């Protein structure tokens, strides 16, 4: 039988042990991202936000399509990071909430194109670009135009993005331009020009790592790439450089959105607001490098920090707009034409 004082001590210990569980009961914010940048997100974004709002951030990682599907069907996600293509798909599916811009205190600091890239939905959080990379030691005449891809001396040299990647349909648009027409008005002419590119294509790829592999093994020496993949490509083959194209690269954006079934919409908005602030944007550009060009125009970077990034008004304006919505509308028709051109 325990003495009275022992009972008191035991009860005190039990209460002391149980209390922290209640004292630390926090809200949880679920952020769905690719997972590969969490070394940056954890110290620079998640931890400061957790401290400021007494919230626990849980991440859900994976490829864009599966994360979008999970967020839409199963729910449980509060903020989702996607490329503009997949966020447009989500918007078309009615998966996202519109954003109350008045609650984003940093929105005015963003470049115009990044504020509402897809209507009343989430803002962009990074700028990237899609262009051409090539091994500069393998050709005497530099690549200066998208139309150079069709050059006779590039037989079996080009690694092409597959149709269902972000870059595939953009290449069709450029093919039309090189044929002197518009791919949306005359898709047949665009794909006839794409067929002319066939002898120059070694392989179509579906991911940045696949492209890196093709360029590093010498299977291809020209690749159509997004800038996020460039550092890895350059590390694998230092002779690879980014082509300066007369027509310009295509603008790529990653976006934040709040799924309709989120249970923490207010907190999610605060998270987005924090993430587009100048400090987080600068940290992201410096830490992540290529593919993470800041969308906040008040961010100031040194020349070294800015190299390889889409940075500054001039560069943002120089890029070609990617008509995601229009591309999704013609997706099925173009996919059939693509299959007819490359699948047989």
């Amino acid at each position, binding site marked *: 039988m325990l003495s009275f004082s022992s009972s008191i001590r035991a009860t005190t210990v039990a209460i002391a042990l149980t209390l922290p569980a209640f004292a630390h009961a926090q809200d949880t914010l679920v952020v769905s991202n690719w997972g590969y940048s969490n070394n940056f997100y954890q110290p620079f974004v998640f931890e400061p936000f957790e401290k400021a709002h007494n919230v626990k951030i849980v991440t859900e990682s994976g490829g864009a*399509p599966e994360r979008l599907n999970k967020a839409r069907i199963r729910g449980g996600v509060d903020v989702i990071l996607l490329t503009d293509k997949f966020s447009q798909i989500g918007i078309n599916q009615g998966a996202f909430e519109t954003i109350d811009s008045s609650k984003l205190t940093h929105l005015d600091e963003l470049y115009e194109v990044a504020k509402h890239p897809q209507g009343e939905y989430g803002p962009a959080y990074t700028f990237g670009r899609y262009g051409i990379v090539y091994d500069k030691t393998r050709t005497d005449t530099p690549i200066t135009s998208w139309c150079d891809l069709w050059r006779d001396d590039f037989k079996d040299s080009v690694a092409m993005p*597959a149709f269902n990647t972000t870059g595939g349909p953009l290449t069709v648009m450029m093919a039309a331009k090189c044929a002197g027409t518009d791919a949306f008005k005359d898709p047949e002419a665009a794909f006839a020009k794409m067929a002319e590119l066939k002898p120059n294509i070694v392989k179509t790829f579906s991911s940045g790592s696949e492209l890196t592999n093709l360029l590093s*093994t*010498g299977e291809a020496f020209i690749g159509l790439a997004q800038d996020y993949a460039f550092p890895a490509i350059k590390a694998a083959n230092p002779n690879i450089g980014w082509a300066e194209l007369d027509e310009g690269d295509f603008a790529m954006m990653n976006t934040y959105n709040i799924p309709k079934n989120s249970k923490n919409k207010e907190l999610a908005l605060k998270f987005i607001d924090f993430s587009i602030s100048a400090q987080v944007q600068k940290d992201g550009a410096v830490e992540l490098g290529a593919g993470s060009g800041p969308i906040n125009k008040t961010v100031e970077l040194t020349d070294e920090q800015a190299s390889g990034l889409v940075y500054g008004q001039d560069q943002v304006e120089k890029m070609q707009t990617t008509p995601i919505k229009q591309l999704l509308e013609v*997706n099925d028709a173009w996919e*059939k034409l693509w299959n*007819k051109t490359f*699948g*047989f």
Partner: protein
Amino acid sequence: MAALGPWLLVLPATMLLFLLLVLPVAGTLKESFDGASGGLLDNYQAFFADEFNRVVLIRSFKIAFMSTFVSLVAGFLGAYMIANASPNLKRVLLILSVFPLLTSVVVRSFSFMAILGRNGVVNTLFLKIGLIDQPLELLFTQGAVVAGLAYLFTPLMILSLVGVLENIDDDLYAAAGSLGASPVGVFFQVTLPLAVPGMIVGSILVFTGSLATFVTPVLLGGEQQMTLSTLLYRKAMISFDWAAANTIAAIMMAITITCVIAMGALANRIAAGRKMR
């Protein structure tokens, strides 16, 4: 109650299988018959109406058949060598032939990229001995996919055949020899017919595996060599076309089941024929 005992013992595993296998498969089949305009076969009609899909279907068949054939020939030779080796050597050879199974499919497919690539082993060798003056385009072709799949599945074929070949009674060889059969005659008239059950089991494993495998066609074939499994992935994970993805899954299941039944029937027929003789 005693009679119920064994059933109760298998009940948990059966329930698990039902939950994890039967229900999802039934769901997939149901979705495939759930056409947009209400017709039962709408999705199937849409699939077969598209010429690209038909090409992919035929290509998948062709690749699966060719890799099965190559695995069968290579596997038979390997298994024959193992079955006739001394016990110690047999153990070593068996371990060596099964060893690739311990490595990931991705690694094994990547190794073929290093072998068949423009700067790969084959091209470098041919260039050095002066057989060619330009690297051959070996990678990202149907041949590369078939070679990769054959390499992937030959160990399964060997495992299926070794047991069968070992169980052939040595007296049969002696009898055939004493009746004047040449070694080649013994092989074709004794060994090969008696190995047919193992060849069929191995072929079923390799064929169904080749038809369903995803990594090897993606890495060694790319979009130009799209197969049913890569098309299914594209429909489900990139185009979000779940109706088409479910239909492709159902078609792949139907093909696999049909092939298993057909090959099983063939094995039974051969066994019955042998008994009649």
